[in-house]
């Protein structure tokens, strides 16, 4: 299976891009380095969500919670304890996956919109606790100036750390995507009834998918802490969840790399339009509407039109029943 990957054209492109990104901090100004690091973090988050939305067909409406849990766990361990950094960094994703498992157990029993709604309420529960527990989490102010270990304290070193870690994670996600497990997940998306009929435990696979995806969301959360050095409850707010959801749809949610494009587009839009006008969400909204009308499959997804059509046709038939 590994050999197959190396034969692909897109792999060559990815490797080239990766090496380009390795040398860019030497050329571009500091601000852009920072923006690139933010893009990597956001892209990782969007890809982890897309594992469930695009490949799993689950309405994961509140993915930001797991991002936030990862960030809060890492940040709080760094601030409140004297444990070494690697424990904090490992604890973030593990805590996110744990919360993902608990929330997942409740959610996978439901379908589609109800799944999303229950997740929003459970996620809001977590958000509300982080938002209110002033002693522990700093409440709505969050915690700023989290001390970073020596080797990633500068912007450039944290850039490289984020680049390498998110690169590794994306490769891992690709392997999962191409693994039998990933294929099963996609099969469940396309036709859960038939999957159940051939003896796949649909709910268990979905739950496993949620745990894996939330783990990667937790990694993204930890990376966010290394870039920003702060945590705040907006990381878990549902608006961010929807924003990430849109990154997936924008980039093309049936493709593997689409969310990267979506994340890049939205983060750069926010940054560059945001410097000209405070009304950047207006522009985002207009772009979204244009996209919905003219490019409904996302930037990268246009050649997947047929696939999408067959899928939504299947959905429509099921909706009618």
């Amino acid at each position, binding site marked *: 299976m590994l050999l197959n990957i190396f034969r692909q054209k897109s792999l060559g492109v990815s490797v080239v891009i990766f090496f380009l990104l390795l040398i860019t901090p030497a050329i571009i100004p500091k601000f852009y380095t920072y923006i690139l690091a933010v893009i990597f973090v956001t892209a990782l988050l969007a890809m982890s969500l897309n594992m469930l939305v695009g490949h799993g067909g689950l309405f994961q409406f509140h993915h930001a919670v797991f991002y936030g849990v990862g960030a809060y766990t890492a940040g709080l361990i760094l601030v409140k304890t004297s444990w070494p950094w690697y424990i904090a960094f490992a604890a973030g994703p593990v805590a996110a996956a744990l919360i993902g498992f608990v929330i997942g157990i409740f959610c996978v029993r439901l379908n589609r919109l109800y799944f999303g709604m229950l997740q929003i309420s459970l996620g809001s529960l977590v958000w509300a606790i982080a938002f209110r527990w002033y002693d522990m989490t700093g409440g709505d102010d969050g915690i700023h100036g989290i001390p970073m270990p020596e080797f990633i304290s500068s912007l450039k070193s944290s850039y490289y750390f984020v680049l390498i870690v998110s690169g590794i994670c994306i490769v891992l996600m690709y392997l999962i995507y191409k693994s039998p497990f990933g294929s099963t997940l996609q099969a469940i998306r396309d036709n859960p009834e038939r999957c159940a009929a051939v003896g796949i435990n649909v709910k268990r696979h979905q739950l496993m998918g949620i745990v894996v995806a939330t783990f990667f969301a937790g990694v993204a959360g930890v990376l966010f802490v290394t870039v920003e050095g702060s945590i705040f409850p907006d990381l878990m707010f549902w608006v961010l969840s929807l924003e990430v959801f849109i990154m997936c749809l924008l980039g093309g949610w049936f493709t593997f790399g689409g969310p990267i494009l979506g994340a890049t587009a939205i983060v750069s839009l926010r940054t560059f339009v945001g410097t000209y006008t405070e009304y950047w969400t*207006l522009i985002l909204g207009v772009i*979204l509407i244009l996209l919905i009308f003219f490019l409904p499959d996302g930037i990268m997804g246009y050649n997947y039109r047929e696939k999408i059509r067959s899928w939504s046709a299947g959905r429509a038939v099921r909706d009618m029943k």
Partner: protein
Amino acid sequence: MGYELALINPQLEPCKLSIGQATMETSQAITLAALGSHLLVGLSRAMILFIVTSGLSFVLGVLRVPNVAHGSLFMIGAFAAHSIAGALGGGSIGFWSALFLAPLVVAAISLITERLLFCHLYEREHLMLLLFTFALMLILGDLTKMTFGAAYRSIIAPKILQGSISIFGSPFPKYNLFLLIVGPVVAIGLWLFSSKTKIGKIARAAAVDREMVGAIGINVSWVFAFAFVLGCFLAGLGGALVSPTISVTIGMDHNVIIEAFLIVTIGGLGNMWGAMVGSLIFGITQSFGILLWPQFAIVFPYAAVVIILTLKPTGMLKSVW
């Protein structure tokens, strides 16, 4: 911040305060009188939630679209009410005409949006519709900010609704009493409308089987437009009604929409009485949460939602889906 509790009553202010005061608050004996007044406050809050949520539920039932922009229309209703009341010189004339005109303004906005953009999307995948309403939320939010600015503002209720009367030995604002009357009136009006009038019956029929309604020669597109506008009208009405009790500001849309979604979900999607039951649960658990544990008051309704959805995944009452 602390805006997430769109408070109906200054009595509830303590939940915004620090922990020291919060614990002081809890150490008071929970008397029957306090219980009663909290119940009434919760009920009046539930009425606002009901008016907003019934609109959302109606749209969800007929169009099957979770209208994320509903909260923005609620916010626009509040802002419009403020402007209209201000333009007419405040006082009771200003207030009553604002209460009457602001929902109409919101309805007009929604009608334009629906006919210009939204009506072309009905054949699409549900997620696209959701995405469209999110784009609408972004645009409307920014347009509101552009038009009205980010300042806090409030409306003064007319003389007859000012002040408070004594119930259970503690003061209870007259305005909340007014809300307690308006809520059921709206509920009964909606019920009469949807069960006794022809267009209401058509709308309900379209909710159950839109193909059949189209097949017998009814223009489904206009039924949808009507349902959408009615739902948004209710959002505007909720916004106008809530404006004398809270400070009207940017960001109030984010909180109300998430609560409205959860209420709709626990009540049963598209079921108006479900929206009522859900609002009552939400409002009462929140106000009792303030009584029991002010710091984590916002956790209580979310926890209630989780418990209900765990026990009864498709909501308390029958969903139209």
